[in-house]
């Protein structure tokens, strides 16, 4: 029925009597019984919508004479003020009372090129600091009749051509001039953008300023005229206008006596506002003198090496800051991948043995004064140049792993279209969310020591995505099976040689290794402990249950089997066990055992039969209580 985009909404011709396809500003009625049939649904949707996009009105007896008016996306965004999350405990009672009342603020913009719209958005974000609940309105399609209901109004508008309103403001301007609504009780301020090279500098803004005063509104702060370089004057205006308009109370009265207090509140400098003030603290650390050891690789010369650079850098600087400084001051050819300053998943590096995101980790977390900072590319990926690695293998693996949600038929609710929409309870959602709460799957791959030595191995970053998707209850049966098969396939979760190499990298590594260990458990059950992996777990458990200690001879025999044992003879493993390895202890008889009974053990020759630990029955009871499969 509607075609809604980011900045407009249009009504389809099929449901209109005039057969047009536009915003239906003229208010053409809806065809047939569309209005009556879907009226309730449209009203419901409109109510649920956080922005006012669709206007729907029933006329007459309401049966079939429905009129729709699709305004453009008049409301751009509603910004929830941080300060309302927790009301500051500081400040006078009067300020508390002011902050406790209605705090709505309308910010209207008239914009031709988007500058005024951008400033309106920025203004809205700052308004939240003063306990205001701002809503940004595009003047296009704005109902002039509602102007008076916005007791606090800020207008940001540019001027077009020779003192004309921008296109999106023209209709509203004409309407206001025609209707002259009373704006008594409205407090306002204007920020006008213009160009001094034109005669009618900022005229649209001054027109609105005069009109608002003429219609009875109260100007709480003088109009700000901004030239083409508008950032600075806008900042000055917003710093004064916002606290002033924030002092307008429920009744529309300006409480100017609270202005200084409001400014303090807005700046977050009050003594007891920490719980509601989400501005991050600025942490400055002292300068560190370090030696930087930097990996370099030039593909053209096929040459690798290390640069050693003495640096002095603030401890709070990130690794990326340091690399930028080196690139700027020492060697412009240094290549590294820049992040977004907030933990970019592809900004990974190995620094002093740690797998880190360069744009997130601070130097002081890695090295102390006088120390060495060794920076290398992320392990496991091919290096393109210097510190830049090629992630294409990751992308290829992910592409073939297909860990994203696919619309298989699945249980759950259905949408209006009839397609299924899976459901998930809160507890499962929390579990899955915790499992996938990793900063970078690319980094997770590098945490595995196996990843660098098995080019076919999917890696923990891919497997974790597959596993969490496979246990997501919204995933359909077919996709679940496909993912599970892939996890258990030749290059899947069994290819990880040692999860402890992943688990040691903080919470991300630990989360991933735990999750993938669970995947292994499920695979073991589904395959009934078959194959070498299953046999290893089964016989390890059994031997521990039998004696309290693991018997390596049993493991060796059961897991490798006769072919594996023969291979060890040909590969020289058995020979080294018996003759060549670094035997500095154990009776020589043990070596002879290997000749007499080849499946004698792993490494140095173990006992053939374990003696039982004391109170062995306690171990058996533990097995029987927890897991009777062994």
């Amino acid at each position, binding site marked *: 029925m509607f075609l809604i985009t980011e900045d407009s909404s249009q009504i389809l011709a099929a449901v209109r009597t005039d057969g047009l396809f536009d915003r239906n500003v003229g208010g053409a009625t809806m065809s047939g019984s569309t209005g009556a049939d879907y009226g309730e649904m449209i009203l419901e949707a409109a109510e649920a919508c956080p922005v006012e996009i669709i206007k729907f009105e029933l006329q007459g007896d309401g049966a079939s004479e429905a009129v729709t008016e699709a305004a453009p996306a008049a409301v751009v965004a509603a910004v929830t003020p941080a300060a309302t999350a927790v009301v500051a405990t500081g400040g006078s009672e009067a300020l508390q009372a002011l902050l406790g009342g209605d705090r709505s603020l309308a910010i209207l913009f008239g914009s031709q090129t988007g500058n005024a719209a951008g400033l309106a958005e920025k203004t809205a974000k700052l308004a939240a600091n003063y306990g205001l609940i701002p809503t940004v309105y595009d003047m296009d399609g704005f109902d002039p009749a509602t102007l008076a209901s916005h007791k606090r109004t800020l207008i940001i508008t540019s001027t077009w051509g020779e003192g004309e309103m921008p296109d999106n403001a023209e209709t509203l301007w004409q309407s206001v001039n025609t209707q002259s609504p009373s704006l008594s009780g409205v407090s306002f301020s204007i920020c006008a953008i213009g160009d001094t090279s034109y005669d009618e500098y900022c005229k649209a803004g001054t027109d609105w300023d005069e009109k608002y005063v003429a219609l009875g509104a109260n100007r709480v702060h003088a109009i700000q005229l901004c030239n083409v370089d508008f950032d600075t004057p806008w900042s000055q205006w917003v710093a004064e206008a916002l606290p002033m308009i924030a002092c307008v109370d429920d009744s529309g009265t300006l409480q100017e006596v609270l202005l200084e207090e409001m400014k303090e509140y807005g700046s977050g400098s009050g003594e007891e506002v920490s719980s509601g003030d989400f501005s991050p603290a600025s942490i400055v650390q002292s300068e560190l003198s370090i030696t930087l050891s930097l990996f370099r690789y030039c593909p053209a010369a096929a040459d690798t090496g290390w640069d050693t650079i003495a640096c002095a850098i603030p401890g709070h600087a990130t690794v990326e800051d340091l690399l930028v400084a080196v690139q700027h001051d020492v060697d412009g050819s240094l290549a590294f991948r820049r992040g977004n300053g907030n933990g970019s998943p592809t900004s990974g590096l190995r620094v002093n043995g740690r797998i880190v995101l360069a744009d997130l980790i601070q130097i002081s977390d890695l090295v102390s004064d006088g120390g060495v900072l060794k920076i290398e590319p992320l392990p496991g990926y091919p290096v393109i140049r210097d510190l830049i690695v090629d992630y294409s293998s990751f992308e290829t693996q992910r592409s073939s792993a297909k860990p994203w949600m696919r619309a298989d038929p699945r249980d759950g609710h259905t949408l209006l279209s009839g397609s299924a929409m899976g459901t998930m309870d809160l507890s499962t959602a929390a579990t899955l969310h915790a499992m996938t709460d990793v900063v970078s799957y690319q980094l997770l791959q590098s945490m595995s*020591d196996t990843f660098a030595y098995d080019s076919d191995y999917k890696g923990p970053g891919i497997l974790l995505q597959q596993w969490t998707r496979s246990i997501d209850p919204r995933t359909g049966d077919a996709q679940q099976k496909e993912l599970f098969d892939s996890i258990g396939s030749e290059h899947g979760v069994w290819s990880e040689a*040692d999860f402890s190499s992943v688990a040691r990298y903080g919470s991300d590594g630990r989360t991933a290794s735990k999750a993938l260990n669970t995947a292994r*458990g499920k695979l073991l059950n589904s395959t009934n402990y078959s194959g070498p*992996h299953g046999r290893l777990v089964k016989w*390890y458990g059994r031997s521990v249950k039998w004696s309290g200690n693991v018997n390596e001879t049993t*493991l060796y025999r059961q897991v490798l089997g006769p072919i594996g044992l023969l291979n060890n003879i040909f590969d020289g493993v058995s020979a080294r066990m018996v003759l060549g390895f670094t035997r500095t202890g154990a009776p020589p008889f043990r070596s002879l055992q290997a000749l007499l009974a080849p499946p004698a053990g792993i490494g*140095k020759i*173990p006992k053939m039969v374990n003696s039982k630990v004391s109170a062995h029955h306690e171990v058996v009871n533990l097995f029987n209580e927890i*897991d009777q499969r062994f």
Partner: protein
Amino acid sequence: MAIKIAYYAGNTARAASSEVEDCIQPLCKTLGIDLIELPKASSDGGNIIKQSSPKLQHALVARNLALAESKGLDVLTTCATSHGIMCDTIEEFREDLSFANHVNNIVARTSSVEYMGESQSRHLLHFLVEEIGLDKIRDAVINPLRLNIAAYYGPNMQRQGACGEDDPFMPTYMEQLITALGGTPVEYDSKCQSVGAPALLTINKPVMRMTAAVLSDAKSNGADLLVSACTISHSNLDSYQSKAGKVARKNTAMPILHLAELVAFALGHYPERFAQLRTRALVIGG
């Protein structure tokens, strides 16, 4: 006065790696460490049982820790994997009290002990450096090592909370200890890298390549021999080194020994074995 600590031999010191057991007892006696046996202690599951049942592995570990706790002692182990496994359970219990209570109830029902979080795990390396002190060890040296020695830590104990005050990612404790014992530590990059010990029997080529990478890295940096803090990784590094070299086409031939052996030799125990080792390292080379 001797320092008392409970001793957990791990999964192989009293089996395939019996030389570790040979050495730990005399070296502790020399340094005034009184090892208290835990005859009821069982295998910790070796991170293998965990793949089928994490709860069972945690219960086995909790029982061992509880046995030490009932004597009012921490646990000393020579195996990095065993130490890592105990630290895992300690951390899991600390983070999830209801899980800890649940497992403890089962352990109490079956073994009449409970782990209350008092007893902690200590690896021999951390215990020697932090509790005994390098000065005391240096003073006790009878046969200085006089070899270029690469230290292998592995990944199991190189994480926050499991490696004492040492740096988890760029550790130096073993190098400090080697220096105190009269040897020359060899720096190399892959000293914390896994050699894939848990998958030795199940994944062939990648594990061999991982093993070869560590050995060849140590060797190319000038090591005469490699000392391991992990009894389980020891098998990969030692018995499988020629196979690893073949698979990865790298020179991997090098004597391997466990930390307990290295310290015991320097403190004057088993001089004939030490002589044999020096011959292997300096003459035979593998």
